[in-house]
């Protein structure tokens, strides 16, 4: 389950930010969106939109980030996102 979500996140990051980013930075659970991938905030929004489209309304991404500080959001990792999506589906 985790693996499938991780693959999906990787594929969508490639669509949004370009495949060359994936070559430079293999996506792992510990990969940070900001420090490692250097995604722009608008690219992170695009990722959230694509995940919503893929997994449906059950993924309350905005509810999830609404209680986080900006520092917490900046520190998010791929693993944080994968575990959040998994929790919405179970």
């Amino acid at each position, binding site marked *: 389950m985790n693996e499938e979500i991780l693959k999906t996140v990787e594929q969508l990051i490639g669509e949004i930010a370009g495949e060359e980013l994936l070559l430079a930075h293999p996506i792992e659970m510990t990969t940070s969106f900001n420090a490692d991938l*250097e995604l722009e905030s608008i690219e992170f929004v695009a990722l959230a939109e694509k995940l919503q489209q893929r997994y449906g309304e059950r993924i309350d991404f*905005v509810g999830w980030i609404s209680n986080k500080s900006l520092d917490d959001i900046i520190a998010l990792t791929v693993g944080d996102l994968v575990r959040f999506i998994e929790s919405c589906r179970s």
Partner: protein
Amino acid sequence: MPIVGANGLAFHVTELGAGPAVVMAHGLLIGTLASWYFTAAPALARAHRVRLYDLRGHGLSDKPKTGYDLATMSADLGALTADLDRFDLVGHSWGALVALRFAIDHPERVGRLAIVEAPLPPSRFADEQKLFASTPDEMIDALPPALRDAVAGGRRQAGKLLASLKFLAYESSLLADLRATGDFLDEDLAKIRAKTLLLYGSRSSCRGAGDRLATMIPDASLQILDGGHYLHLDAKDAISAALEAHLA
């Protein structure tokens, strides 16, 4: 990604939550709809249908070389809200000026209005914008601290941000449009019927504009929050709470 055609361009639009409609417009240059998405929009989305969009030339919307004046950008807003009868309107900086222009021209469309850090007169914005500095390093120095730190360590983000700034500052009519924008007339401001919240930063150079708007807009209240021009970054929780209370 939700892309909506309006005024001959493709705009990136996203919606959060459900309830009475609120439309939020971000500021120029370093702003995108992410400015609201990661700050005040999630709190408002608990009780509202919040519509965010990337202004022309910004984020994932089309990047035309012209049309950065308030009349055209207010028309963009009108086209992107044509399906809504009436909505509350929130704007930051130049986005707040777009909101003011729209509220003056279309009073029947706007319920409540929230103006965050609108600079007056509008042309002053261009003169004070250190982001129009001549070198990339000077542009970086002029960013708000949180963003500057994020960019300092990241070549990819810095490169993309600078490319966007260079396009807007040097290849589009944005700077000329800003400089050519006349001031709002007192008699126009006096026509605004919407209950209006004015939010300004304690350390912002725009504060005088807040005082003027508080005097001229009939049903306005002014709140000073602890922070500078980028209030949504400096005071995320305070601005969220103030907007939630105003739009409740």
